[in-house]
């Protein structure tokens, strides 16, 4: 028994090195595991629709909600806006007016025209905006 223990202990240094040396392989294996994806509440969810035009592309993500299982009131829909766009956008059962270009993005309620307070950021790929629902 003690010889097996000493043998295993001797191999632990090699095992520790192999964790790092073979990291690429381990990462490939790990990424195939079913839970290895960022939660949609954090990442914005999958893209379900696109609006494409001559000088714009808008990708609309699925609606995501906070909660371990149940859909809470607290949810949002993410839009990825690339280019210049001015017009209506349908998100779920609501309609909004979107005015976006390289400098700014404004999302307004289509009925009242009031600008909405949304979470947005400008990235190298355009605007990412999350509309609360």
């Amino acid at each position, binding site marked *: 028994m003690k010889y097996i223990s000493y043998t295993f202990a001797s191999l632990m240094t090699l095992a520790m090195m192999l964790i790092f040396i073979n990291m690429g392989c381990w990462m490939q294996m790990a990424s195939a595991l079913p839970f290895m994806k960022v939660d949609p509440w954090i990442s914005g969810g999958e893209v379900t629709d696109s609006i494409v035009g001559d000088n714009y592309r808008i990708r609309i993500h699925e609606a995501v909600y*906070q*909660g*371990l*299982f*149940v*859909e*809470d*009131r607290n949810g949002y829909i993410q839009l990825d806006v690339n280019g210049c766009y001015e017009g209506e956008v349908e998100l779920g059962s609501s309609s909004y007016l979107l005015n976006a270009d390289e400098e700014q993005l404004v999302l307004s309620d289509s009925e009242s025209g009031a600008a909405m307070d949304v979470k947005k950021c400008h990235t190298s790929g355009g605007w990412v905006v999350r509309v609360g629902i």
Partner: protein
Amino acid sequence: MIEGLLIGLSVGASCLASCGPLVISVIMKNTPTTFGAYAYLGKFLSGRLLAYIIIAFMVSMAHGTEWQTRNFVGATNLIAGLMMIANAFIKLPSYCVKGRSFKSLVRQYAPQVYVPTLGFFSAINACPPIIAAASSAAVAESAVEAIMTFIMFFIGSSVYMLPLPLISAARDKEALQSIGKFASVIVGIVMVAKGLLGFDY
């Protein structure tokens, strides 16, 4: 009613994540035996059941969830949080009642009411499971049906809490009690903060 049970079963994990820390803290801090731990769980759930029945009644009367005002939920979180912090310092007796005089009965029963009261206040919350159950109960035809929906929801969601008392079977009771005490304080602080932030100032 079946819908209530199904909602409870489907969101029970959420209930476990939200209310589990409270139950675990109380059990670990106070309970030496597994049977006693289940007694504490029973008391906690009884307070929760009472809260659900009252919520169901209010939902059926209001036909909606207007009772879930920020101040109301903030207050219940605050009370539950303070009770959790207090739980770390007070000693709860076992489930057996001793003594016959009025004074000794009060001393015995008052702490006995503590855990159900904690279960009651922690249940009155605008958490996703309650909202789902309330939405289902809101369309019930009568108050009785709404109450039955919530009772079925209670049964479905409580199933997930049944394994929690088994933690009292751990060998190191001293460690368990220390962890329970500290967990009570941490959960209490979180709930007090949640309560204070939840108010409409």
